[in-house]
């Protein structure tokens, strides 16, 4: 219904409406429909669909992780979380240790265009325009990445008022034996700046898992995370399951990702 309204208003001639209230205001229909479109997309964010009520499921300084094997869709999932924040005009710093800036940029364009296709949105160019100023991509080589370096880069940005992130996405950090120290350093940094931080975490097929589904090699650092979400391919679908945090024990049915688009599947009961 909402989308129909958006389409109808977009197609109609652009006119100014003057509301006869005590304080007359002019609304541009095009602007209004655009705002509604953004809100509609925010409502469709994967976490909300998973049953999280709060806007931010992490507390400031909190960590979340998306766990999956290679190629299952971790980056795509995080890009969707990032887009959700961007649509709310929150600044996201996307750090990638795998891909160059252009490729990360392409991820965003790709996910947005898939969303646009799925929800029949025609204003993608404008959407991209509005979210771009809120996004900053930073890429490092895995071997060249260190938390002090990140801190230095971050202060370059914040001190000159170039960009102050509210959310951090760290894609491609290798979760090996030496991860505890950098993670605690990032925790300090996140708490100091009240950042919400999301990581991708690659798992392996024959990896030993703990009782809660979290790989045993990560048990030492598991306490640092408030939310852990797993993407698991089952047959032709990818299940999204909360391993830790709100929703982990609930009976809320797990969400499904469409492997073709990596977007949350529209389910009939939703």
């Amino acid at each position, binding site marked *: 219904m909402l989308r129909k309204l958006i389409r109808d208003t977009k197609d109609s*001639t*652009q006119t100014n409406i003057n509301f006869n209230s005590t304080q007359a205001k002019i609304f541009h229909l*095009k602007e209004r429909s655009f705002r509604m479109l953004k809100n509609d997309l925010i409502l469709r964010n994967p976490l909300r669909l998973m049953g999280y009520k709060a806007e931010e499921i992490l507390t400031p300084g909190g960590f979340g992780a998306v766990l999956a094997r290679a190629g299952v869709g971790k980056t795509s999932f995080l890009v969707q979380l990032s887009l959700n924040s961007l649509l709310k005009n929150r600044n996201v710093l*996307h750090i990638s240790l795998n891909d*160059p*800036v*252009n490729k*990360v*940029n392409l991820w965003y364009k790709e996910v947005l265009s898939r969303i646009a296709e799925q929800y029949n949105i025609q204003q993608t*160019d404008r959407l991209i325009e509005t979210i*771009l*100023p809120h996004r*900053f*991509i*930073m*890429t*490092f*080589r895995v071997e*060249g*990445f260190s938390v002090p*370096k990140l801190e230095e*880069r971050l*202060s*370059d*940005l914040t*001190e*000159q*008022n*170039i*960009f102050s992130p509210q959310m951090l996405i760290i894609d491609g950090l290798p979760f090996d034996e030496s991860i505890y120290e950098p993670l605690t350093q990032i925790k300090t940094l996140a708490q100091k700046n009240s950042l919400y931080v999301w990581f991708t975490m690659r798992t392996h097929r024959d990896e030993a898992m703990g009782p809660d589904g979290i790989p045993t090699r990560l048990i030492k650092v598991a306490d640092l995370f408030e939310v852990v979400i797993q993407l698991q391919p089952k047959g032709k679908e990818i299940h999204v399951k909360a391993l830790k945090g709100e929703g982990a024990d609930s009976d809320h049915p797990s969400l499904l990702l469409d492997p073709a688009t990596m977007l949350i599947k529209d389910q009939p009961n939703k």
Partner: protein
Amino acid sequence: MENNTKKVRNIGISAHIDSGKTTLTERILFYTKKIHAIHDVKGKDGIGATMDSMELEKERGITIASAATFCKWQGHEINIIDTPGHVDFTIEVERSLRVLDGAILVLCSVGGVQSQSITVDQQMKRYKVPCLAFINKCDRIGANPLRVINQLKEKLGHNAVAMQIPVGLEADLTGIVDLVIMKAIYFDGDNGENVRIEDIPDNLINEALKKREELIDAASMFSDELMEAALEDQVTEDLLISAVRSGTLARELTPVFMGSAYKNKGIQPLLDAVTNLLPCPSDVENEALDKEDNEKSVILSNSPDDDLVAFAFKLEDGQYGQLTYIRVYQGTLAKGMTMVNVRNGKKFKVGRVARMHADQMEDIDKIDAGYIGALFGIECASGDTFASLGTGLTMTSMFVPEPVISLAIVPKDNKSQINMSKALGRFTREDPTFRTHVSDETKETIIEGMGELHLEVYVERMRREYTAEVSTGKPRVAYRETITRKAEFNYIHKKQTGGAGQFGRVAGYIEPVAEEEFVFENKITGGAIPTQFISSCEKGFKQSLAKGPKMGFPVTGVKIVIDDGASHAVDSSEMAFQAAARGAFKEGYAKAGPVIHEPIMKVVVETPTEFQGAVMGSLNQRRGMIVGSQDEGPMCSIESRIPLAEMFGYSTVLRSLTQGKAQFTMEFNTYKKVPQQIMEELVEKAREEKKNVA
């Protein structure tokens, strides 16, 4: 002139500015005995490198125009086009690549793959030019050729494979190990002219064996024979080279060579590689369009006996008149023959035919298919095709971007005025991205181009080569106007005061349209406007687009639909409807939310990481939006989108911020709406200028 195209190589040397390609060309010319002494770019002897023929290039240490030259190596004829490295001159690079069969991609062993290398690589991809890579400056501090090979793989997506490894690095660079013959090669003598081949030093044997294995692995993908030989451990030099050649020609393998042109190391093996691995003209398929057969594409035969098809890829004005650099694709271009310029159908007789060596030349009788040469005294524009009489074949036209910046120039005196127009005539013929016109309002001459430096260089050349003293105004950005919403118009043009009357009514609407400059649709039914006047209406609207009513900038992205109107049996005329359309446009445009758009450039700065913060700050100050930063060891690159209007003088700012260690490239990205505050400033400025003119 010999005629064996199997032994001809038309190659270009493409690279990032300052990666040493002019020095490399100089060394190639020296070893092929085309020159007898070496003069360095910015050298102390003040002579400059031979290829930098223009005085200005010598002074700035950069190569602007691509000088074509030829040399001989091991019985092969090599035509070299030294291509410019700055992004502002990419039309030169594009043109060069159009006529080349292969290229050497020069990379700096310290700087590695930089943003300009990416641009050049994209151009090579566009024209499907096979290339080999040469990692230069291995004698410099911080040289790391293996890192550059990885960058070639990661950043440019090349299947790069080392053909050599260095013997020593930085100041200790003494030679190279050839992984095909498995020998160490040293370069003795004052200028490295004596090649000494010896056994591989013990400390490098293991690495050489490992790298050779990698080379064989990569090359065997292109030769079953090599694959079998590798399994039986019987790889021969010929087998390996022929497999690498197949991979290179298919653009699926990039063999990597290394050395230091400045220190005279590794050039002769590179020349061997050019003859062994890069294609000869008959290896490359070239297409032309048949003008007489609906522009159907025709594959050219590359045979000297067929009809002539030749392509003018560069013009230069020399002391003997206009010099036209030409590549013959098919047939033979001989002295005294008559040929036709396919673009305008003009016939002419071929006078002098020459082969160029930087700014010296050698007279020859003919240019055969596959060769590059030069003609004298032929009036043509670059990009023209010459063909035998009766042949309608034309080479495909090249992609020419629209200029984004303009500058007013005023000659100081009468003599300068005459020289300036001569210079402008030549520059516009030589470079399709450089344009000129006279402003209707100010009557000043306006030059347009692809960037500040692009225009600066032409103004300098006017002064030096034509002694045309000109003063320049401030660079102006190519703003555009467009509309944001649909609006209706209904305009009556009526003039009935004395003489023949004029009457026309045009009604319809105007709306924004994406990705099109102008769309006109006629929805008139019932003959409200007689059919013969519809084209006048379109013409009237088109006239209005040239100068937008808001600020006088060209209007783009507009769709006009006319659906009603009226005419008068006597007073309606083409003139009347053109005037009515202009009035209708003005009426509709004012209601359609007109806005100004400005060109936004993609600016990539490459800087040592210690200056990253300062560089980001400088970009941010320029209404820039930083897309991201990429950390690449000691260097990092910052990608941003910045309005062109804010980029004037940025090179000076960047230099002083980074002690001259950073560089940037800039290319047109898109047009975007100008923020309200800036628009107000523009309106104010336009008003003041109008006042001044009045």
